[in-house]
């Protein structure tokens, strides 16, 4: 049963196209990498999936429910969607708005009405998983770029979403931190989470990705291949290397 089902989805910005006619199904537990040059529509797709924007044309079903402007206008439905889909922004600056890292991670669980002990447990677990326990009492505003990425992921994980949307999550991380984050994402996928990650660095994501959607500069998806299929297509691999 498909978790995400897109039919003929398009999105237009006031002057330009953001995404051109995309049809796609994603099943629970998949690890999908969105590849393509800057401005090719990866971030637009993530915004549509998270419910931050609604398609100009076409339909988007999440868990068999049509997500459109009417659905999103309903505060309760919108919040339920946000419980199931978590997103790490490309610019993580905008995502961290609390006075301390611990409060940042606690923000989501507190909304859910969990008990204080449960909230504390989630904070500890998430910070440990993202290897940012030492940042606990720091001010998010003063963290480095890589630290912000880790804290942002921790704060999204604390909500335990079913789907994780990540927009260039590896940018600004050291090689070791990139490896740790990819390992964590693999673990999350193994635990049944669906992961959709945008990147333009093929070398980074090749080891973990199981399915690759390749966007071109005209905001279209030119290829939708599994990792094993991609291994048999050296031309496409070479093309992805030069993104």
């Amino acid at each position, binding site marked *: 049963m498909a978790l995400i089902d897109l039919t003929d989805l398009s999105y237009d910005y006031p002057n330009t196209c953001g995404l051109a006619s995309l049809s796609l199904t994603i099943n629970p537990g998949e690890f999908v990498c969105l590849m393509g040059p800057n401005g090719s529509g990866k971030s637009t797709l993530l915004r549509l999936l998270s419910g931050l924007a609604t398609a100009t044309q076409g339909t988007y079903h999440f868990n068999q429910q049509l997500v459109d402007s009417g659905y999103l206008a309903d505060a309760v439905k919108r*919040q339920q969607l946000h*419980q199931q*889909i978590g997103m790490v922004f490309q610019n993580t*600056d905008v995502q961290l708005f609390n006075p301390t890292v611990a409060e940042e991670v606690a923000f989501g669980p*507190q909304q859910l*009405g969990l008990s204080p002990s449960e909230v504390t447990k989630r904070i500890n677990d998430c910070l440990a998983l993202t290897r940012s326990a030492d940042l606990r009492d720091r001010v998010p*505003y003063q963290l480095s770029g890589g630290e912000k990425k880790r804290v942002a992921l921790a704060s999204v994980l604390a909500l335990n979403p079913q789907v994780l949307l990540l927009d260039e999550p590896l940018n600004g991380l050291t090689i070791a931190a990139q490896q740790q984050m990819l390992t964590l994402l693999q673990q999350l996928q*193994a635990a049944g989470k669906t992961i959709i990650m945008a990147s333009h660095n093929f070398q980074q994501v090749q080891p973990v990705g199981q399915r690759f959607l390749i966007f071109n500069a005209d905001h279209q998806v030119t290829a939708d291949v599994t990792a094993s299929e991609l291994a048999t297509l050296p031309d496409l691999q070479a093309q992805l290397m030069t993104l």
Partner: protein
Amino acid sequence: MIPNPKTELPNWLQRPTPPTKIRRRYSRQFLAHNQRRLRHLLRRLAQPAPVVTSNWHLSAQAKLLRLGLMLGLIASVQSPSWLWLLGLMLGIQLMLLPPRQLRYFGRHWLLDCLVAGLVVLPSYWLAGPTTVLFFGLKTSLMLAQALHFRLTTPFAAILTGLKAWHCPNVIIMTLAIAMIYLRMLGQYLLQTTEAMDLRLVAPARHPYHLIGALFGNLYLKSYTYALELYAAMEARGFNGQYVKATATNRWRDYLAVSPSLLLMGLWLFGGHYFGIN
């Protein structure tokens, strides 16, 4: 779902969280409402109202002068025939707009007038119909004049216009920075509200705390921007000059401003010399 033995994930993360029951409350809608407003602002800043490029191209300083003169005149005159004359002049200016622009103008102008009219309506019972009518006429003329100016003058031109009027560089630079960063901070604010929205999985208990965090962060961000901008300005050898006034077609400017100047002169001296005030 079978927990994967290989993972070191905590238990709660391996089970899906059951959806929480959500109570309806008003407090969350304000984010969505403000997001709409911010998007509208950003759209406007990204593509300022399509500027007319007629062959009758006026310099911004001439437009600024004309705007000032016309507004001053409309505010000062107190006879319907004068207002009529001024309205006529405005009408001629509007004739130069392309049809699409004119329709845009019409829509916005009517809306502005409606709002202004509602505010002044209660005075109908206080001061009588003529006052309200006259006040409404004058206000709508002033609104039209200002809207016409906004429609035909891009922001960059206002800066050159101010420069041509010998406005100090500090002020011009501050205005330019304010416009550029209005867009950047607006974008930042919009994205933060979106990020907040995504993690507001239940009604916020204290929406005002969110607002404190929102604008506290925005201030800190603007402070960072200011430090970066200052460093960049120094690195590029900033010398206090910001905009250069461009040479423009002078006689056209004089010609375009002359009717309003003439009317202003007529209004000031008309009563005395010609008895037509």
